[in-house]
């Protein structure tokens, strides 16, 4: 049987070739490595382009910002990072004076004089903020400061020459910056925690040109070794300023953080690990496989699909005993709000010149909201642990009203049916068009929406869909006011409800972020009034009033804040947070021998 011999030899050879590879060799690994994962990819490492959470995570580790959020304090609290102290604000709220820490140096780079990183100075902040208003840079963060800094618009109009001064943005001396605003903007200090505000060295940016985003140089606790479409590798910045962790100041609570071993990092110098590897794993199942493999990523989001498998209980969330022995569970609400929004520019469901028709459309929107079943949504998509609340002010901000009337988020099919009947026969109802981007979950979202609407008598054939290939396509169509009904998520930029209420401010209408094109002069007036106010009970009252206007006008079906469950291996000492603390978490994380 020569054939048989032939075959046997063949398979033996194949096995020999394939099988010799099972033992992953340790190799010359440097000392202490933490392996993080993210469920998306960064938009770029240039602070001016760091517009998603993934980019932000890396940018705040490679660069320095003036302020950051305390590691463990919740609700979120701001604290100094590169700034030496809180800003000094003038009585009219228009002038901010900020002092920088001394002796902070950029990472070494050939573009510096003799290749040695020079000291970070006030001029660097001035340069870094100016960059956002240079059209050549294509900043994605300029909206944070647009029309807010005196003289910036003029500077831009005169051709964005960096050697020309901006009246409202000056370095008073080597370590002091003065910012003058065009109008009060109490949230200004928050914008200085964002990745967009990070400080970049002018000479390196100019030497690299467009490639700065792939080879960034900053003064953050880490520096970049490599990055591609699937992962980024960072290593400790040996030049990083010697700062020690003050656990109490970071908001450590022995009760809330019991059993995590955090005490061991107190008083030690940041960052604690030598190397941080961040894998970009978009697919939840794939991430889970990698996480449970044991020697790969040490942090993963627990997909809601696996809650039944992994959780012993949901409130309070607890892991099953066998998993508990291997992993820590961290449950954090997302810092933002997700809603199903209506485009009020759409004549079918939005504004009508005729007051009566206008009211009919508002009633129709309210009927859709009553027909919508948040609990079912929560069960199917968010594992039943999401926060659902009336309007757009989420529980994570101080202005949230825990005692608000919940009728706008209560499933009321009977009420919906009554309104629809009052509006007349089914033929008179407009065709609804629900838009989503292609994907299994998104399609399920539509099917559920349609099911709930048809359950209250909305004709099935009048609930149509429009599918775009990707999410950016949906955003683009929203910017062009082409959509009717879709899911709109907003990640908040700072812990102040102003950030979400601005989504309904008239002058922000699309292509700005007021995608519903809500136009209510009374709302705009109150919003402007509140925007200039410092935090106070009076301001909170106005915020809640604004929220109630949105509910009364049925602008959207709102809202939900997803609560995400994350797991870390037990050898990781840290409390990861994807939200405002975000990348600032990395300097506090430690990896120990498995306890």
């Amino acid at each position, binding site marked *: 049987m020569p054939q048989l011999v032939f075959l046997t030899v063949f398979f033996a050879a194949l096995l020999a070739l394939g099988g010799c590879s099972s033992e992953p060799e340790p190799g010359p690994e440097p000392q202490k490595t933490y392996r993080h994962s993210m469920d998306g990819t960064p938009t770029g490492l240039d602070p001016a382009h760091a517009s998603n959470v993934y980019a932000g995570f890396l940018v705040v580790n490679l660069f320095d910002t003036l302020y950051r959020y305390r590691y463990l304090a919740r609700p979120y609290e701001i604290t100094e990072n590169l700034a030496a102290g809180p800003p000094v604000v003038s009585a009219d709220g228009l002038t901010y004076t900020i002092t920088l820490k001394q002796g902070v140096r950029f990472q070494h780079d050939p573009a510096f004089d003799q290749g040695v990183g020079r000291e970070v100075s006030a001029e660097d902040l001035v340069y870094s903020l100016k960059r956002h208003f240079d059209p050549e840079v294509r900043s994605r963060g300029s909206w944070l400061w647009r029309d807010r800094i005196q003289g910036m618009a003029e500077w831009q109009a005169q051709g964005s020459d960096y050697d020309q001064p901006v009246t409202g943005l000056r370095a008073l001396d080597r370590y002091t910056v003065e910012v003058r605003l065009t109008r009060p903007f109490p949230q200004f200090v928050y914008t200085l925690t964002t990745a967009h505000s990070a400080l970049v060295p002018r000479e390196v940016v100019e030497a690299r040109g467009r490639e700065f985003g792939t080879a960034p140089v900053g003064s953050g606790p880490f520096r970049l070794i490599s990055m591609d479409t699937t992962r980024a590798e960072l290593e400790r910045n040996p030049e990083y300023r010697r700062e020690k962790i003050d656990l109490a100041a970071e908001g450590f609570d022995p009760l809330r953080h019991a059993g995590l071993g955090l005490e061991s990092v107190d008083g030690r110098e940041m960052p604690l690990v030598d190397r941080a590897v961040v894998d970009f794993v978009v*697919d*939840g*199942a*794939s991430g*889970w*496989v990698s996480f449970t493999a044991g020697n790969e990523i040490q942090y993963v989001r627990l*997909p809601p*699909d*696996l809650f*039944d*498998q992994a959780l012993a209980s949901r409130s309070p969330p607890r892991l099953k005993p066998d998993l508990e022995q291997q992993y820590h569970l961290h449950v954090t609400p997302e810092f933002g709000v997700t809603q199903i929004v209506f485009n009020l520019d759409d004549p079918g469901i939005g504004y009508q010149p005729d007051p009566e028709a206008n009211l009919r459309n508002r009633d129709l929107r309210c009927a859709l909201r009553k027909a919508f079943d948040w609990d079912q949504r929560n069960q*199917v998509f968010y594992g039943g642990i999401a926060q659902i609340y009336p309007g757009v002010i989420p529980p994570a901000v101080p202005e949230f009203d825990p005692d608000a009337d919940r009728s706008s988020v209560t499933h009321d099919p009977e009420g919906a049916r009554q309104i629809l009947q009052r509006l007349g026969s089914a033929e008179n109802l407009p065709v609804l068009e629900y838009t989503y*981007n*292609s*994907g*299994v979950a998104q*399609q*399920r979202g539509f*099917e*559920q929406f349609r*099911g709930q609407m048809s359950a209250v008598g909305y004709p099935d054939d009048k609930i149509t*869909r429009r*599918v*775009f*290939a*990707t999410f950016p*396509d949906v955003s683009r169509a929203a910017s062009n006011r082409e959509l009717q009904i879709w899911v709109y998520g907003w990640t908040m930029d700072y812990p102040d409800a102003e950030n979400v209420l601005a989504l309904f401010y008239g002058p922000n209408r699309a292509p700005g972020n007021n995608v519903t094109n809500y136009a209510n002069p009374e709302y705009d007036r109150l919003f402007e009034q509140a925007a200039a106010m410092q935090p106070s009970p009076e301001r909170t009252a106005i915020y809640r009033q604004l929220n109630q206007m949105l509910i009364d006008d049925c602008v959207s079906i709102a809202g939900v804040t997803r609560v995400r469950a994350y797991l870390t291996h037990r050898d990781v000492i840290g409390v990861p947070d994807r939200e405002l603390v975000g990348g600032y978490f990395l300097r506090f994380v430690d990896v120990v021998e498995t306890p």
Partner: protein
Amino acid sequence: MMWQRWWERVRQDPVTLAALVLIMLFFGVACGSWLGLIGGGWSDTSSLLRGGFSAEHWFGTNAIGQDIFQRAVFGTGVAFQVGVSVALGATLLGAVFGSLAGYFHQRAGDGLIGWLMGVIESIPFYLLVAALAFAMQGHNLAMYLAMTLAFWTTTARLVRAETIRLRQMPFVEAARTLGVGQSAILSRHILPNTSHLLLIQFTITFVGAVKAEVVLSFLGLGIQDGVSWGLMIAESTSDLLAGHFSNFLVASISLFLLVMALNLLADAMQDALDPRFSHPADPGPAEPSPAEPSHGT
């Protein structure tokens, strides 16, 4: 005569017979789904999430409580819809362009069509489909159009070669001397004689389209309206980790059985109708299968 020979062979070959029966069975299910007799409740949700086998849900339910059996049935309809329409379109295009190119062999038309085929074949398949899907803004027909566009060239190449051969046959020469017009020669004398090729290619393209749909749906570029086996596989990756295999198995086994049966049928047709075909005189630059290149484009 050719068909009789084929039927004789099929009758004697139990494997092909079984394949044929299986295809008819799937086709019956697809018809049932089109007529709305079965599988109509594919999108209805129930409170039973990831349920196991039961009398009510034969193959259990998925993560949002939809009946897997009904979804598989609906997916069968979609598979046939995709397979038949793409195969029909690609075979038609291939027949027309292939016979034209062959008839005008070594003239400008041949060169032009050859160039067009070369151009289309040199863009990697999935990139072509993805680009088209985006260019058409996620339109429902984008996938059908893209697959048809990508698949017709293989058929055209075969038809072209056959036409070149037929053109020199005495009966074509005779027709020409009798003054029969070019279009009549093509449509009455040449194309009918390529019908066996077209049928085989139809089957092979059918297989290619069904398999490609799975990949495209997995990438989010496939079926937009409804459910398909590809979407079932795409949504099953998290089920697998939860130890719930039924979604994955039902979809991939259905896919496997249909594709296997069609492949067997194509083989049997090839053996019976076109024995020359199995000779690789000129394998050409085309991929072995239009849809799933051997090395995963």
